[in-house]
């Protein structure tokens, strides 16, 4: 049988340990050279470029997608910032407007209050004048009544009418006290 012929030592009949059988070395080396070189050529020419290409393409795609995602994120961030800015602007403008209106209304109220006060002051002065005039005229009337009354009393007491000037002097003297 071919198997036995191949594994047996050429000299004796004792079978040899196959990995150390020198007779098989030449065949193994020849076929190893053929298949290893063939494999090397196949791998270096076809397999590596293809696999490398696939991996590179994927890396490129992933990086491109990430860059695109980052770009879109930046855009949305910018839009958000713009929105917040316009919101803040609008709020500031509203506050400014409110403040302005408040100031204007305050100023108007102040003005009308002052006008009213001035008007009231005038009325007060006039009223005081009226009071003073009334008082003066009242006092004058009181003097007249006092003079008449004094004259009447003196006439009743002593029977003669006193001179008008004497009575007036006496009344004036009495009013002074």
């Amino acid at each position, binding site marked *: 049988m071919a*198997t036995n012929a*191949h594994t047996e030592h050429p000299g004796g009949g004792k079978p040899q340990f*196959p*990995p150390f059988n020198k007779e098989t070395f030449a065949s193994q080396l020849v076929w190893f050279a053929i298949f290893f070189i063939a494999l090397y050529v196949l*791998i*270096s020419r076809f397999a590596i470029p293809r*696999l490398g290409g696939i991996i590179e393409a994927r890396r490129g795609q992933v990086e491109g997608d990430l860059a695109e995602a980052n770009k879109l994120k930046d855009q949305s961030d910018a839009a958000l910032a713009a929105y917040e800015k316009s919101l803040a602007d609008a709020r500031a403008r509203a506050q400014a407007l409110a403040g302005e209106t408040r100031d204007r209304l305050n100023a108007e109220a102040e003005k009308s209050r002052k006008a009213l006060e001035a008007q009231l002051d005038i009325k007060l002065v006039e009223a005081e004048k009226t009071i003073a005039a009334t008082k003066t005229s009242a006092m004058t009337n009181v003097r007249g009544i006092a003079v008449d009354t004094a004259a009447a009393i003196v006439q009743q007491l002593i029977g003669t009418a006193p001179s008008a000037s004497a009575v007036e002097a006496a009344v004036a003297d009495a009013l002074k006290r």
Partner: protein
Amino acid sequence: MADPIHQFEITKIATLGHIGGHEIAFTNSALFMAITVVGIWALLMGGSTRRALVPGRLQSIAELSYEFVANTIESTAGKEGMKFFPLVFTLFMFILVANIIGLIPYTFTVTSHIIITAALALLVFITVLVYGFYKNGLGFFRLFVPQGIPIYILPLIVFIEVLSFLSRPISHSVRLFANMLAGHITLKVFASFITLLGGLGIFGIFGATLPLILVVALTALELLVAFLQAYVFAILTCIYLNDAIHPGH
């Protein structure tokens, strides 16, 4: 008990001729080398025909092995080491697939023969020598002269360095060969215990469960060894190539 050595026998399928008195035959070893190459081809090219952005299973394996080897080279030999990527990738895939195919029952393990692992190791050794002298000229000898060593022990250090450099192809080849050989013999021995004990009646069948469990565990271990030895071979290749690229320590 079945002969545990039988699985390593080389059987002729067809004799093709003679070169210098050596018979050249297409053997089971050559057949399994062919199966290995076809298997790698099917995995790498068949898996990537669709060039899918989201890879399927086969494409994932192809890409994973590509990136695994590329990262191994880059981390040990740097960017310059990438020019040896096709070589290291071919070595890694050839050893890995040959080892794994060898684990299937009734197959032949190409890497369990010292002549094949020696050829692989010498290929790396010669590549290192040729590229080392081509790139660095005589500066490649700096590899044997570490810096910062006192002059009086320098001869000894150089001697040790040269010796360790020359023994590299031996350890490189024997490591892979011995691992595959020992693993397959162990598997075969424990597997034959199962049939041996199984033939001893009812108690034998119970007794056979222990070697059965062991064989299952060993198969898992051998699967790990198949990958690990391919990886070790590839990473040592990278380290040796790094010496050729950067000979100064």
